[in-house]
């Protein structure tokens, strides 16, 4: 089997709000804070690795669209246990939206050829669009199960447990297929040092727009269908309301009432 993990490098979502700045409708990278692998993508990698462990004889390729710095994200997934890495790096890819990103990734998957399943995070933790996995499936004409907490192989199909707001749902999708993985899957593994060192030595293939047989006008900012209009930082603030009441029971009732009034419950 050949599995693909799509990994994105993003600005650290744990950047303290005070270090977070927006200028000219763009996020200014915080000084001294390195970009990280999107946490959901680490879970997607974990799901693929678990499948590899149960299925045996499986190759895993990790793909990332990004600049040279995204090598770090690829190496991290390689250290976790992926076999090969591909970086999709081209100036033409810059400024794209979910649509163009999916298009580029799908082209890379097509170029790899023999791919059986694609694992994405449920969403990238920077823009939280949650579109790319679906977009890849659409582009390739494959089925897609989103927000997975468990992925198993059953013959020629994936059995995916999906997280719903009020429970779980199990679906079966025939291979080749796309899955987007949620944090309910569990913590991604901590790589062994031997693997980290091996990953550091691996060469990551880089493909540009020409390698993928794409037209530069159809990708990146040029091909985007979504235009960013405005970007603003929410004003952080807080207020405290002390719930009155003689006994804990009264206080609890007051709290429930206050939450209802605020339409939270």
């Amino acid at each position, binding site marked *: 089997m050949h599995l693909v993990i799509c990994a994105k490098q993003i600005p650290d979502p744990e950047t*303290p709000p005070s270090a977070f700045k927006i200028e000219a409708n763009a996020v200014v990278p915080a000084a*001294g804070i390195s970009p990280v692998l999107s946490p959901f993508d680490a879970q997607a990698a974990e799901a693929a690795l678990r499948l590899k462990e149960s299925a045996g004889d499986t190759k895993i390729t990790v793909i990332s669209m990004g600049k040279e710095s995204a090598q770090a994200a690829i190496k991290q997934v390689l250290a976790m246990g992926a076999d090969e890495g591909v970086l999709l790096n081209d100036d033409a890819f810059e400024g794209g939206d979910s649509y163009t990103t999916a298009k580029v990734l799908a082209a890379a998957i097509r170029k790899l050829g023999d791919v059986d399943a694609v694992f994405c995070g449920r969403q990238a933790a920077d823009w939280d669009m949650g579109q790319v996995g679906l977009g890849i499936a659409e582009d390739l004409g494959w089925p897609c199960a989103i927000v997975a907490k468990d992925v198993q192989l059953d013959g020629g199909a994936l059995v995916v447990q999906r997280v719903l707001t009020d429970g779980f749902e199990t679906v079966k999708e025939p291979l080749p297929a796309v899955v987007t993985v949620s944090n309910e899957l569990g913590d991604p593994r901590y790589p*062994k*040092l*031997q693997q980290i060192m091996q990953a550091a030595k691996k060469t990551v293939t880089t493909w540009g727009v020409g390698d993928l047989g794409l037209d530069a006008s159809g990708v990146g900012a040029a091909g985007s269908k979504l235009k960013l209009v405005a970007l603003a930082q929410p004003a952080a603030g807080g207020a405290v309301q002390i719930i009155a009441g003689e006994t804990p029971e009264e206080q609890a009732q007051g709290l429930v009432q206050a939450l209802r009034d605020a339409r939270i419950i």
Partner: protein
Amino acid sequence: MTTTEPERPASSRARVVGSWWLPTTGVSVFGLITAIELDRTGATREIFFNVQQPWAVYVMLSVLVGLMVYGIGRHATLWAIGQPTPGLREQVAKRLTHLVRLGLAQEKIRRDRYAGIMHWCIFSSIVVLTFVTAQVAIDDDLGLHFLQGPYYLFFSFYGDLFGVIGLVGVSMALYRRYFDDFHRIRWDERLEDHLIIWGLAAILLSGFALETLRITADELHQHPDWAPWSFASYALALGLDMFKFEEHQLLAAHTWVWWGHLVIAMGWLGLIVFTKLDHIFFAPINAYLLRTDSPGRLTKIENIEEREVFGVGQIQDFTWKQLFELDACVRCGRCTAVCPANIAGQPLSPMHLIQDLKMHLADVGPAVQKAGHEGHDVRAVSPLAMVGDVIKDETLWACRTCGACVQECPVMIEHVPTIIDMRRYLVMDEARVPATAQAALENLEQRGHPWRGTTFTRTTWMEGLGDVPIFDGSQEYLYWVGCSGSLVERNLPVTQSVFKLLREAGTSFGVLGQEETCNGDPARRLGNEYLYQILAQQLVETFKAKNVQRVITNCPHCFNTFKNEYPQFDGNFEVLHHTEFLAQALQTGTLKATHPVSSDVTYHDSCYLGRLNGVYDAPRQILDFVPGVNVTEMKRNMSRGLCCGAGGGNMWQEEVGARRVNHVRTEEAVETGATSVISNCPFCIQMFEDGIPAVQPQEEGRMRAFDIAELLDKAVFGEPAPRNG
């Protein structure tokens, strides 16, 4: 003012217990002089009195020596499967000092007073009585016949004296083993423990019986003026003489007792290499092998990128010294009795860990050795995983690296490096890391600090402090704030207090601000030596590039890392903890604590400042300078202080076990009746802040936790006294 006397370090304590040598030496010298004065020339006795076929003694002795050589050889082949132990040829003078002070003078044993006296009695009587017996043999067999005249009388005297001393020691040991309830020496009690002590009792008692019979049959009547020199046997002989036994009866009894004494003694000596008695040899040797550098320093894995196994996963991955010291363990339980994890009911007992490893070595060692000889894969030998099956993961994670076990061990076993070596295997080779510790490690890798989810930056604490100088190489000191000091809310005020005090004292200093990164201590303690080395190398380069010479740290862990571990990476800086610097500033008068801070406080020694670096006095001096402060020491203080529970990376782990260590320590702080607990470490402060509400559920009158810099801040700048304090 200090109300409860703090426990003094071993150096001053040694004088008190060391004086035990004085009375005995005094009595001996007095006896020798008196004997010479009396000049009873001609006093002697027949050696091998009343004994036929004494050559049998030498047969037994040969068997004994053969057994010992065989036994030690068997041990040695197992030690030899270990890895080379570096540095043993260095610091020979210091090693010899260890041999004398820890091996012969037995300073560590005396940390338990009762055991110190008991062990000295037994040890000295065995040494002296072996010497006595050897003299008898030399006198006769080499035909020297020096046991004559005054020396014979003196010989009789000290033989009896040390026989009595031995019996005192044995009685103390028997009391502890059989009558002192729940004693640590019974945590892992075995048949050999009973055999050894009763055997010793039998040797001493049969020795006295022998002397008594000989004196009754011979000296008492023939040389009544010689007999009293064997004062104890003489007294017994006077008693026995009243029964008016026939001489042949006494001689027959003497023969039986003589052989009985000999057989028991030989048997007991034979136990040496097969029981914990082997510590007679191994403890002094282990004192010589003991590290000569700081106990706060962990070993560096050299050329880590070229290694196949990073930590210790199998028994042969240990150094031979680490295997050797397993055999030195006497199961006294001192380590376990002081282990914070064990005190809190968590799954770590250093003694059992050492014993489990020792058993494992005996189980698989011979096969490993054989496989090595035959060129087979030694890693495939053990049916059990040493890390995981023999020593459980949770045991390794429970260690606080506080060093209490290492400090107490009377045979100089170093448990902490052994535990960390196995942790390194867990983390780097197996990647089996508790989720919260993993999060801390990943955070270190990605963000350069262990505090996942912090909403602060490394400059947040500077707000409202005016101009904060950035270190540029022109200032004398670098003030190293550390991750906790800048990124953990509770520790920010401490950083601000230290900063204000440094500025007030007119110190030439600067900070790195945004450029600070973790120095790697949590990574090293959590077993990720690789990550530690990357972080340490980067920071040493930064320090050198910025021309850092002197560093003042907020945190004892940073202090220990810079001071003891960075020299491993060619980073040699003068490092002070803020308590040391502030104590100096108060003494030289550059800082003046003029505002009374009326408060009853207790002081908690952090392990990394106290036990591992010996800084006990500076913080107490600061407390003495603060007017109005009344200090009550906790029952465990100074070198016996109990860890707060956060050391060894446990700041970032969920605790497993009956209780939390910080709750235990908080209780001890509360017991003093103090209203504030003062410490010097950001982790300790956090642990107390967490422990206090658990121990004192009522908010009213609750104890508060402060860093000593916060207290001094109030005394220097006159801020309002703490609530309830």
